[in-house]
């Protein structure tokens, strides 16, 4: 196989990241360079800097485009993000801002030498399509989430159209799970042969142990954005049922998000305000601590294309309950699954797992065995195969 030159349009890249996508882009790019790939990454960055300091190797070049774009924006939250100053500099609405990103991205791409175009999620799709048209190079769309996952039904037609156009013009689509692949087939009428599944991974350190000190109370953790599609309200309703049964169990909802105030209110309305703690957005160094403090991790998503946090929790030896509507269960079989709406069953599982000894150790030992076989290096190899198959090598 010939080493590939990859033009990548991303959304975020550490340290300028708010969600899992930045991490995924980072680890994947790094792993690809180990296979000899050269990557030019074009990402939106918020703020002044045009020179990102973090250049992991000289095989990844990063060009930032000054923008307010971030992966989880909706029209409403975009408006909310801008202060008056910024409103002068940036486009007045999300659509304008994306076309600004697209225009600038296509310009920057002209300076690059590449074999394939690799785009991460809908905001970059138009830039990818235009660059394909200009360069004639194959276009790969990497789908980490679709509008159907984010919107919980109230699908934004503007976003849908961008996604649908991208899917029809792409040479290959990479879905992060079979769950997502099926969503793309069902909702965008894409031929299944065009879609390859490449699951996400984690950097697994088998030496990780849970350093949990002997706390008196058991802790159940939610960790992720507090958004509708993540199902935080189901977590809280299950928490209510658990606490009615055992008042010594504590729930932690870690992460930021637009539903945070609403969820605080819900917890108070249900009378469990003192048993459900909110941390707000966590810094990277705090993430390790939050896993260490947990006895159980719950991912109650209404729709979760993958769910990398479940792997992180498992690697920290925390047993995991994941929603049936998630991609991660395709690679992690040593976990519990539950329907997100079935808060009775969720509460039953939480209580049972915490009550009976034996399960935590058994599950985390077996999960560790599975995690050993999951790595970004393997995923990068799968993606490299896709690059090669498209560029005619």
């Amino acid at each position: 196989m010939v080493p590939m030159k990859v033009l990548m349009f991303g959304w975020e890249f550490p340290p300028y990241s708010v969600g899992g996508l930045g991490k995924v882009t980072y680890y994947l790019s790094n792993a690809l360079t180990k296979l000899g790939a050269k990557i030019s990454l074009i990402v939106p960055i918020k703020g002044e800097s045009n020179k990102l300091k973090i250049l992991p190797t000289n095989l990844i070049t990063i060009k930032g485009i000054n923008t307010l774009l971030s992966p989880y924006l909706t029209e409403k939250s975009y408006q909310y993000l801008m202060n008056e100053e910024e409103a002068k500099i940036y486009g007045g609405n999300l659509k304008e801002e994306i076309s600004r990103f697209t225009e600038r991205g296509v310009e920057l791409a002209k300076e690059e030498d590449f074999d394939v175009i690799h785009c991460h999620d809908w905001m970059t799709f138009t830039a990818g399509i235009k660059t394909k048209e200009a360069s004639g190079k194959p276009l790969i769309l990497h789908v980490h989430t679709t509008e159907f996952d984010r919107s919980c039904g109230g699908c934004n037609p503007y976003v849908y159209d961008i996604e649908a156009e991208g899917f029809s013009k792409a040479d290959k689509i990479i879905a992060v799970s079979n769950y997502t692949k099926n969503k793309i087939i069902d909702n965008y009428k894409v031929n299944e042969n065009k879609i390859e599944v490449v699951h996400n991974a984690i950097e697994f350190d088998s030496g990780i142990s849970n350093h949990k000190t002997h706390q008196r109370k058991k802790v159940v953790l939610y960790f992720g954005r507090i958004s509708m599609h993540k199902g935080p309200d189901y977590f809280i309703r299950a928490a209510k049922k658990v606490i009615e049964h055992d008042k010594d169990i504590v729930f932690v909802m870690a992460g930021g998000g637009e539903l945070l105030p609403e969820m605080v209110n819900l917890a108070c309305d249900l009378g469990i305000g003192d048993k459900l703690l909110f941390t707000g957005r966590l810094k990277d160094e705090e993430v390790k601590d939050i896993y260490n403090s947990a006895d159980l991790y719950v991912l109650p998503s209404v729709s979760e294309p993958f769910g990398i946090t479940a792997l992180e929790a498992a690697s920290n030896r925390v047993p995991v309950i994941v929603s049936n509507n998630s991609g991660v269960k395709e690679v992690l079989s040593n976990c519990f699954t539950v329907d997100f709406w079935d808060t009775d069953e969720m509460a039953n599982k939480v209580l049972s797992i915490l009550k009976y000894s034996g399960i935590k150790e058994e599950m985390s030992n077996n999960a560790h065995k599975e995690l050993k076989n999951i790595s970004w290096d393997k995923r990068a190899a799968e993606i490299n195969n896709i690059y090669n198959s498209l560029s005619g090598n």
Partner: protein
Amino acid sequence: MVSVCLYMHVHQPIRLKNFKIFDIGQEKNYFDDAKNKMYLERIIKKSYLPTNKILLDLIHKTDGKFKVSFSITGTLLEQLQEYPKVIESFQKIIDTGCCNLVAESYYHSLASVFSPEEFKTQIKQQEKVLFDIFKMKTKIFRNTELVYQNEIGKLVSEMGYECILAEGWDKVLEGRNPCFVYKGKNSNIKVLLKQYKLSDDVAFRFSERTWKSWPLTSDKFAGWISNYNGNGNLINLFMDYETFGEHQWEETGIFEFLKHFPLKILEKGDDFVTPSEAIHRYNSVSEIDFPTVVSWADSERDLSAWLDNKMQKTASSKLYSLKRDILQYGDEKLIDDWRKLQTSDHFYYMCTKWFSDGDVHKYFNPYKTPYDAFITYMNILSDLALRLEYIKKIKNNYMDKQFLESVEAGKEFYTKDGITIASMEELAGAIKTFDDETFFHHVNEERNDFANWARDVIGDFVLANRMKRVRKQATLNKIVSARIAELSFL
């Protein structure tokens, strides 16, 4: 001439309901009747009826030269009570005299490794059910999953058994051949050893297209058996009955194979024996030592599929820790429930050995994951322990004058209409005065708050037990007043 001893193990567990933690203490049934019925009817149709028909035909067609033997667990026989046609189909084969019934533990349990007395009780229970249904007594024994070691042989020998079936495991045979009768160490029990290669050729490999000997024809199989002439006199083919029609579906040709391979064996001049014929026809060639437990399962031939991981150890030790009290205090139903929880399948469902590999074992598992199996089991076991605790309290604490005293401050009963009740006396007085709304709020189909208060706060389980199913105000009042009179009498 070599003799073929074909023995089939017939068993279905009684599967558990999805029992949630919230169900504990709610007096709910443990067993999933609908699911058990569904599995059972499927296997009757796919396996039991067609297989028994073939076996009976073979016996008649060969004029009794074909022999077959069965062990049928108590848990299955219990479920078959509603299917007399199936029982009858077994009875017809047994009545030909070409069939040995083989005894075992009624509940298909692993009691042999936990408690010899419990093990014996379950064997006697199985003897009884075999006699009640089939009017047969047997001298042949097999333990759950062919679990065997010297002590087990000694124990069943002392119970009057002449022969036990065990795995012909290489490590035990130490270069010897399983195709002979052996004698157990430290007892006079005769040991018949499973010829696992030939048995598994049928049970596991029959439909395996990647197997170099696929497809397995009757002729080929009878030939392999015949090759043992001069090198052994007994080929023990031991397998699960469900091999025919369930593990190996009809479409694989398994029924055609079953119809023909016995005839081929007879054609080649070999014959069939039951275990009791085998031990009377052939002397034991030597003593065989099973110092540790050997089973017929997996490449390890041990108990690791049932009792190896943390969950299995937690569950089994909790289960058997209840033994003394259950047997001392438990009523018939409680003891029976406890024993049904001993069925080895419940522990098998918790096995994580092959889970990640997506192994075929999953096919026989009603749970999504071994972890689900574990929490369901533990919730039920917790409920059982709670029932035991209540029964113990009733028996030990039957009369205690302290029940008449006022409860400690803060533990009073607050009724919906604002009355505070602090003692049994006050409860009796208050019940009379409630309007319907208040009464039905506390006593209805879902719950009886007064009974729960009597149990959890006063601690009078007898009173609680008498009250819990009563829905009438006047009756409840009478019960409480009578209890007061009874206790005052002390």
